[in-house]
C-alpha cells in the first residue's frame, strides 16, 4: 500500500516535473478526442437524418382486380413478415374510391357504374438499422407474390441515399481510427522522450533494486492522468459547444442537435485505453 501511494504520488508529481511533455500529450489527447467527439455527434445526427429519410421511403403495392379485400388482407400479412418491413397500410377498393372522391371531388362509381380502382397497400420500411438498408430484396419479394399487379417504388433514389449514408459511416469510422492511431503514436513518442530524458533515473532505480513494474508504474499513471485531463477538456468543450449551438438554433429554428451524452463515457474510456497503450509501448522499449 505504501508503495502504491508513493507511485501514485510520483505519477502526479511527474505531471509537474515533465510539464512540457505533459502539455504536448494532453493537448494531443484533447485535440484527438474533440475530433472523435465531433464525429460521434455527427454520427448521432446522421442517424436522425437517415431515420427521417427512411420514414419517407414508401413502396406502393397494387393488387390485381380479381383480388378480394379478404385476399388482399392475407397478402398484406405476408408482406409484413418480410425482414426490413416496418409497417403496412391496406387500402381497400372502397377506401381507394373514397380517397379519389375526396381528392378530385368526383364519384367514379356514379360515373362508370363500377369501381375501377384496385385495392393496394403502402409499405413503410424499417427506420432503425445500422448501416446499409437493402430495399431491393423487399421489392423483389413483394413483386413475386401472387395477386400483386404492380409495385411503385423509389428503388434507385433509396439505394443512392443508403449508399451515401453507408460510405459516410465508413469514412467517419476510418477518420476516427486514424486519429486514435496518430494519438497513440504521439503519446508513445512523448513518453519515450520523457523516459529517454530520465535514463539516469531509471539507472538509479535499477541500482537500488527497483523492480521493472516499480519503474513503469509512475509513467503509466502519468499517462492515465494525462488522458483524464485531455478527455475532461474535450468533454467540456464539446458540451459547451453543443449547448451553445442549441441555444442559438433554438432561437432561430425548431431544429436542435440531439446528443446522447453517454458517449462522453466512451470518450474517457478511449482516452485511457490509448494512453495506456501509448505509454506501455514507449516504456517497453526502455525497460525490458
Amino acid at each position, binding site marked *: 500500500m*505504501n*508503495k502504491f501511494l508513493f507511485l501514485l504520488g510520483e505519477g502526479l508529481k511527474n505531471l509537474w516535473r515533465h510539464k512540457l511533455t505533459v502539455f504536448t500529450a494532453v493537448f494531443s489527447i484533447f485535440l484527438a478526442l474533440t475530433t472523435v467527439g465531433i464525429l460521434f455527434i455527427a454520427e448521432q445526427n446522421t442517424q436522425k437524418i437517415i431515420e427521417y429519410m427512411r420514414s419517407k421511403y414508401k413502396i406502393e403495392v397494387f393488387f390485381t382486380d380479381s383480388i378480394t379485400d379478404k385476399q388482399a388482407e392475407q397478402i398484406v400479412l405476408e408482406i409484413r413478415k418480410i425482414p426490413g418491413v416496418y409497417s403496412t397500410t391496406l387500402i381497400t377498393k372502397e377506401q381507394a374510391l373514397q380517397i379519389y372522391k375526396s381528392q378530385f371531388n368526383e364519384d367514379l362509381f356514379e360515373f362508370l357504374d363500377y369501381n375501377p380502382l384496385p385495392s393496394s397497400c403502402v409499405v413503410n420500411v424499417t427506420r432503425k438499422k445500422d448501416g446499409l438498408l437493402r430495399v431491393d430484396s423487399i421489392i423483389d419479394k413483394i413483386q413475386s407474390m401472387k395477386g400483386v399487379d404492380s409495385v411503385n417504388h423509389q428503388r434507385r433514389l433509396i439505394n443512392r441515399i443508403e449508399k451515401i449514408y453507408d460510405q459516410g459511416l465508413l469514412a467517419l469510422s476510418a477518420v476516427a481510427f486514424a486519429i486514435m492511431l496518430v494519438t497513440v503514436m504521439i503519446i508513445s513518442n512523448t513518453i519515450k522522450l520523457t523516459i529517454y530524458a530520465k535514463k539516469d533515473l531509471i*539507472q*538509479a532505480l535499477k*541500482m*537500488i*533494486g*527497483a*523492480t521493472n513494474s516499480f519503474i513503469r508504474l509512475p509513467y503509466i499513471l502519468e499517462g492515465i492522468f494525462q488522458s483524464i485531463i485531455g478527455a475532461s477538456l474535450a468533454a467540456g468543450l464539446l458540451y459547451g459547444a453543443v449547448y451553445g449551438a442549441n441555444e442559438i438554433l433554438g432561437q432561430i429554428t425548431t431544429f436542435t442537435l440531439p446528443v446522447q451524452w453517454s458517449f462522453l463515457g466512451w470518450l474517457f474510456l478511449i482516452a485511457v485505453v490509448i494512453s495506456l497503450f501509448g505509454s506501455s509501448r514507449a516504456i517497453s522499449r526502455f525497460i525490458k
Partner: protein
Amino acid sequence: MIKLENVSYSYKKGFGLSNIDLTIDDGEFAFIIGPTGSGKTTLLRLIYLDILPDTGIVKVGKFSSNSIKKRKIPQLRRSIGMISQDYHLLKDRNLFENVALPLHVIGYSKSDISDLVIEVIDEVGLTGKEDHFPDELSGGEQQRACLARALIKEPEIILADEPTGNLDPVTAFDLVKLLEEVNGEGTTVFMASHNYSLIKSRNHRIVEIHDGKLRN
C-alpha cells in the same frame, strides 16, 4: 560473501573480462585497482548482475548468476549499496527525497522513512542539507549523499565504482575513511579505483586488474 568462479565476459565491441577467480569475504574491505578500461566497472556490474557472465559463476550471498531468476535480481540489488563516480542522484529531488528512494522501493511507511533518512544523513555528515538539490551540493557532498542512499537500506555489501574520481584528495580521503567506518560496522566494502596513492596507505587487500585479468 562475493565469489567469482572462472568468470569471463565479453562485450559486443570488444573484450571484457577473462577467467576471473575472486572471493571477497563477509565484512572484508577490498580495493580493486587498475587503469581506465581494465575491467573494474565490468567486474562490479557482474557482481550486482547488471550483466551476466558468458562463462563461470558469480555468487553474492544466497544468489548465484547461473540460477537466479530475472525477477529476483532486484532483491539481490537491495542487499547491495552502489556508489559511483557519476553519483546518479536525481536532480529533480532534494537530498532527503534522494536518500529516501530505496525505502520507497522496499515499501516503508512515510514515518519510518523520515526517521531513517534523518539518521543516515546525520551519519554521513550532511545534516541541515536535507532540502538541498544535488546541484546545490559540492562534489564531496553529492558523493556522501550517494553513500547515504546506499546505506539507508542497511546493505550487506557496498560496491563503490571510482567514488573518488571527481573529488579532491582531501575529500577523497574523507570518503574512504567514511567507508571504513561503514565497514567497521560489518558491511563488506569493495571499492574500485585507479588512484593508487589514495589506497596504498590503507591497510586493506588490493586486487589488481589489467586487460580484464586479475594480477596477484
